[in-house]
């Protein structure tokens, strides 16, 4: 065996705190090593050429690259050695950057540690076997979860690209938060006017199969071949028959149903179509408020419906869809105002959230676009906006910036002036975050043209006095406490992970951060991919973002799906489990533990019962390998021998 070892400087990233020349020198002493060198930037083109040249020149058959994390460049170097004619599994990487050079400054200790890391990699690579991928067919249908603007964009781009799309939306209509907005920054165009046509397209596109008021029940399979179980929740209205005429809603006597679409600004009927432009435009009964469900009598809607669509007996229904890739676009949620007790929580009707204010501004909202105080329906003259209401607040576990509220506050301040010319807006802010194109100009306009008073400081307390709400804050630029007697207070409540985000991540086997936002594969270079191949992200489910970024990501995710589906076959990862039928005693312990049901019982010609791995199903976790009492089932590339050789490399010295 002739192992070649390449130690990377990564500029000064590694060489600054690791004596790379000494690591190479020590590597050379290890039996089996035929060649060892150190190089400035190994991943650069000349760096890779150097590896290829050395393979030829030195006749190397195994390669160790000691550099950054394999999560960064393993694929790069696998391709490199493949080009030089080696099987790509004859590569091992030693992570001497993230795990060594960057976490300590003691060059002596770091160098020792790097030598160990290289020894381990050498020990392992000598055990490596050539592995060959097999290819399988892709099911070229895509599932999009979440029908907000990001999900719709992804669905439309995929459908326009010729793919069959399954779109699953949890609520009764698509559109997400954007469908609730009045106007959008920084251009102040009507939100539903630009979103409406997209929603109609989604509803009518022959390639898009829309499941509204539905949720993902179960996801099975792997990239190229997923089986999805979808729960169609009972609406108690047969949507095949419902024409969306709205008669039922008019006549329903249960008038105090919570209006999810309007964030509770005003009540709605127990049977309702969420908003005039809803797609699909179908009615749905809320059994928490319907008298038929609560008291067992009413039936008004059933009597009135001209198409006989009402069905109080309806049950949830499970349907199965098969797809080859998944785009997750489940968006975000908003912080429960009740947590902000210093602002009164929801105790004071005239302290509302930004999204509720958006509904008050909206011409098709519950007040037909007249701004009024929820308490007495009068027109407010003094409106105070409180930014970062719960955002950037470590004390409640939301240390991050919600990203878009600075901008929408400026928008709302501008719109307020348009609606009520003799009004005065005040905005409490800590920083104005407006780094997009035309954004800062926009927040400036709110101040310069629309006269909004911006006060630099946080608000500490809000309380009622007479008919006014007193907002007590600081003006840190004046260095003083200030109070404003407001008619209406609008809190820019923090953006948080969507409800159920963690459960969804678990179904998809993707990671989420401490706050419940999904983790992308690389924060800069793979922003819409996840670490689970075949699953892509779009929109605010990955972190708070505004509409332009959400749409951009929706398109980007679609492009990723289209490029994945541009091939007919996919290569499987050959690092899967393999049974040594000689050693297997047929106990089937492995079968019981495999999380993917990838193992079946098989009978050899001799009649012997053994375990057998279904190649396309095995995900390569290795749980079976650590289960088997005989060492008969081995996860390729991570066999007992390979891992123990690494242990030996560092322990038996």
């Amino acid at each position: 065996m002739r192992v070649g070892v390449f130690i990377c400087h990564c500029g000064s990233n590694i060489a600054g705190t690791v004596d790379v020349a000494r690591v190479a020198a020590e590597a050379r002493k290890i039996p089996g090593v035929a060649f060892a060198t150190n190089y400035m930037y190994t991943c650069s083109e000349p760096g890779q050429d150097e590896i290829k040249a050395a393979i030829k020149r030195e006749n190397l058959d195994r390669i160790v690259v000691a550099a950054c994390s394999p999560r960064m460049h393993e694929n790069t170097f696998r391709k490199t050695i493949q080009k030089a004619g080696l099987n790509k599994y004859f590569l091992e990487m030693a992570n001497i950057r993230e795990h060594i050079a960057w976490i300590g400054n003691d060059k002596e200790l770091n160098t020792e540690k790097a030598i160990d890391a290289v020894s381990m990699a050498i020990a392992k690579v000598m055990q490596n076997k050539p592995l060959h991928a097999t290819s399988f067919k892709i099911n070229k249908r895509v599932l999009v979860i979440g029908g907000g603007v990001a999900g719709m964009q992804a669905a439309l781009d995929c459908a326009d690209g010729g793919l069959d799309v399954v779109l699953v939306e949890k609520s009764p209509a698509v559109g997400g938060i954007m469908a609730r907005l009045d106007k959008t920054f920084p251009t102040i165009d009507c939100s539903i006017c630009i979103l409406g046509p997209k929603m109609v397209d989604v509803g009518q596109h022959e390639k898009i199969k829309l499941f509204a008021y539905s949720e993902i029940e179960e996801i099975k399979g792997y990239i190229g071949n997923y089986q999805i179980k979808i729960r169609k929740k009972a609406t108690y209205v047969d949507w095949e028959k419902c024409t969306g005429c709205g008669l039922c809603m008019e006549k329903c006597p249960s008038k105090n149903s919570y209006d999810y679409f309007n964030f509770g600004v005003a009540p709605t009927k127990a049977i309702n179509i969420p908003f005039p432009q809803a797609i699909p435009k179908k009615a749905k009964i809320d059994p928490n408020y319907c008298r038929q469900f609560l008291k067992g009598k009413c039936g008004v809607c059933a009597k009135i419906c001209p198409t006989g669509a009402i069905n109080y007996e309806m049950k949830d229904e499970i349907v199965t869809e098969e797809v080859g890739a998944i785009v997750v676009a489940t968006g975000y949620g908003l912080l429960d105002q009740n947590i902000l007790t210093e602002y009164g929580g929801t105790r004071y009707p005239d302290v509302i959230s930004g999204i509720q204010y958006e509904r008050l501004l909206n011409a098709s909202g519950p007040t037909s676009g007249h701004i009024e105080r929820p308490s007495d329906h009068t027109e407010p003259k003094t409106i105070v906006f409180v930014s970062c209401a719960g955002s950037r607040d470590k004390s409640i576990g939301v240390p991050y910036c919600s990203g878009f509220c600075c901008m929408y506050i400026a928008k709302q301040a501008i719109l307020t002036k348009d609606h009520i010319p003799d009004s005065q807006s005040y905005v409490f802010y800590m920083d104005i975050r407006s780094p997009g194109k035309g954004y800062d100009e926009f927040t400036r306009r709110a101040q310069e043209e629309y006269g909004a008073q911006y006060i630099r400081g946080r608000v500490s307390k809000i309380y009622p006095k007479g008919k006014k709400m007193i907002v007590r804050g600081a003006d840190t630029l004046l260095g003083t406490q200030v109070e404003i007697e407001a008619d209406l207070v609008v809190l820019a409540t923090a953006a948080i992970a969507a409800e159920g985000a963690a459960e969804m991540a678990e179904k998809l086997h993707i990671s989420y951060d401490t706050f419940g936002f999904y983790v992308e594969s690389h924060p800069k270079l793979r922003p819409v991919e996840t670490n689970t191949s075949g699953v892509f992200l779009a929109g605010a489910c990955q972190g708070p973002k505004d509409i332009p970024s959400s749409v951009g990501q929706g398109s980007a995710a679609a492009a990723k799906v289209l490029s994945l589906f541009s091939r007919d076959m996919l290569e499987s990862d050959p690092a899967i489990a393999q049974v040594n039928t000689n050693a297997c005693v047929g106990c089937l312990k492995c079968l019981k533990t495999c999380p993917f049901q990838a193992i079946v019982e098989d009978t050899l010609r001799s009649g012997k019962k053994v375990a057998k791995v279904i190649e396309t199903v095995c995900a390569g976790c290795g749980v079976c390998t650590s289960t088997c009492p005989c060492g008969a089932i081995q996860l390729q590339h991570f066999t007992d021998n390979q891992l123990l050789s690494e242990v030996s490399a560092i322990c038996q010295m």
Partner: protein
Amino acid sequence: MDALNLTEKTDWTFIEQFKKESGDNPSLCYQCGNCTAGCPYTHYFDYPVSMIMRLLQTGQKETILNSKAIWLCATCETCTTRCPCEIDVAHVMDVLRHIARRENKVAEKGVKSFYDSFLKSVKLFSRMYEVGMIMIYMLRYGYMLSAAKLGMDIGPKFLTRGKLSFFPHELMGNAEVARIFKKYRKMEKERAKK
């Protein structure tokens, strides 16, 4: 006025001393002003509390130790409760008072004297004994005028309702309590030597 020359006038040792003594990290403060916004006493402060935090970040030792603010803070905990960065601001003010005491820089002598009288009364009587405390406050610190006024305001109302007793409670001094103070002085002296 000249620009504040931060190269010369940043007292890094003071910042370090503060950090060590308090266990608080002034860098956590992002100057949102919430503490000032909620502080009931801010109108009486010479520097609002968020500015004290800023002065601390920039190592302005003299300004801080000579401020009235640190003595007028009532430890009401409003700032600590609402600080989004989880800084125990009231504790910061407390520690600044300790440093100011040690360095003999007390901008609000009356407030300090009151605290001292209170403790003196505790040392003597082992419990706070209001009449005794007021007498100490009057005698030792010569605040005759205000004290006389105090006597006028509070005395009659309290005495007629049997609220102030002229005599301390039966306990009348407990050797252990006095010892706590004695041992504490000794501890302080030893610390100072080091």
